[in-house]
């Protein structure tokens, strides 16, 4: 019996590839933009790309935000991907400052513009977005990232895997009880990504 997952459609980017990857690892996927439907889910995946802004404010303040909080508080497995993970935290400095769902402690910050590839200040300036394949620690696996903002949390016990870009070490994945998040795109991370999604689907863990 495949695990039923509600894939939240909140107008924060293309869902097809996430749906395709979830099906590949054995989930039965229901795509929904209906907060009432999401509120009844036994397992939720909440993807997002793009930025904090008016769309995320409408979501956080609206019925969908309430539904997502309800699922999380009830203890059902929840996975936020990329912007979907960032939205679990308190605030973002993006677009002049927007609130998140405030489920977890932390802020969303932009990578500093002047990071260098090495210790030498003359070494190449790092590009933003952080785009491409980076390894995470402690597993050493590679995942695909595409983001200019990252989570900074005062609670390191939330962080399962770390990733480093320039001088910034940021959470690649977070976990607290039933709540999981990944900054990378598992649906674009080939076998590493599929394994990550499968762990979530099978165990409600990541």
């Amino acid at each position, binding site marked *: 019996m495949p695990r039923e997952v509600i894939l939240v459609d909140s107008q924060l*980017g*293309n869902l*097809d*590839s996430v749906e*395709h*990857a979830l*099906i*590949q*690892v*054995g989930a039965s996927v229901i795509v929904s933009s209906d907060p009432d439907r999401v509120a009844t889910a036994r397992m939720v995946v909440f993807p997002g*790309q*793009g*930025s904090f802004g008016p769309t995320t404010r409408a979501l956080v303040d609206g019925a969908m935000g309430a539904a997502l909080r309800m699922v999380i508080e009830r203890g059902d497995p929840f996975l936020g991907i990329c912007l979907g993970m960032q939205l679990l935290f308190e605030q973002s400095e993006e677009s002049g400052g927007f609130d998140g769902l405030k489920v977890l402690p932390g802020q969303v910050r932009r990578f500093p*513009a002047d990071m260098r*590839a090495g210790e030498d200040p003359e070494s*190449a*300036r*790092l*590009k*933003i*977005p*952080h*785009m*491409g*394949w*980076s*390894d995470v620690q402690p597993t050493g696996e*590679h995942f*695909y*990232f*595409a*983001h*200019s903002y990252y989570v900074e949390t005062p609670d390191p016990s939330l962080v399962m895997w770390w990733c*480093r*870009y320039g001088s910034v070490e940021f959470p690649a994945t977070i976990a607290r009880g039933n709540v999981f998040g990944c900054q990378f*795109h598992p*649906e*674009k*991370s*080939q*076998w*590493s*990504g*599929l*394994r990550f999604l*499968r762990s979530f689907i099978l165990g409600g863990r990541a």
Partner: protein
Amino acid sequence: MLKRRVIPCLDIKNGRVVKGVHFANLRDTGDPVEAARAYDSQGADELCLLDITATTEGRDTFVDVVRRVAGQIFTPLTVGGGVRREADVRRLLGAGADKVAVNSAAVANPLLIRQLADRYGSQCIVVAVDVRQLKPLPGETDPLYEVVIHGGTRSTGLDALSWCEQAAALGAGEILLTSMDKDGTRDGYDLAITREVSQRVPIPVIASGGVGSLEHLRQGLDPKEGAADAALAASIFHFGLYTIAQAKHYLADHGIPVRPHEAPRGVLITG
């Protein structure tokens, strides 16, 4: 640590890969889906599909190719060619593309870049820039490059460096930089302009045009040579000269950080 990317590119005309594709252990095929699957399983870091058809029917076929390819791979997919307006971007993203490259339309209307980046996020807007070196005037030492459009057939008078900087400032997430002088020559990227652009713009740069060997890929990615973040190539992979895995090994052996090739293991496959 962020790795340098190797990106095979497929030119699509009327729904088929042109130039022909010949992989080791695979029959000759012009089917883009089969080619994409092969590259994906060889460990390509990303795939690029470029539409080189000119007709409306060809465009519809291309969207269908994007949809079928996106349904088969689990790596990022960049698509481009003939993207003129927001509706084209929406259609391609809707078909499963992760990033869309705009070229001539952005030159005609630079604000299109900002409009697309605001709407879809910078991370999915690639600005493709085709450049050509200008003949130096007497007394000039540094080569100048201009932007060309419509497949290199039309000059724009735009300085390549300034245009790339402007594209980045308008919200482009990446620059796909192709040297028209080098394209198809197989004698390597134009390293001078690639390095200049890569050092100047704050966003990732994909080197393109001219790859004929694995050493050319290395040059494009070496911080002292091309300094690009990603290396795009077509024919060396299509004609079965090298596999992606061979390219990765070569780069790793020569000090370029790349994602190691990983064979599929331990994943439940249902489809």
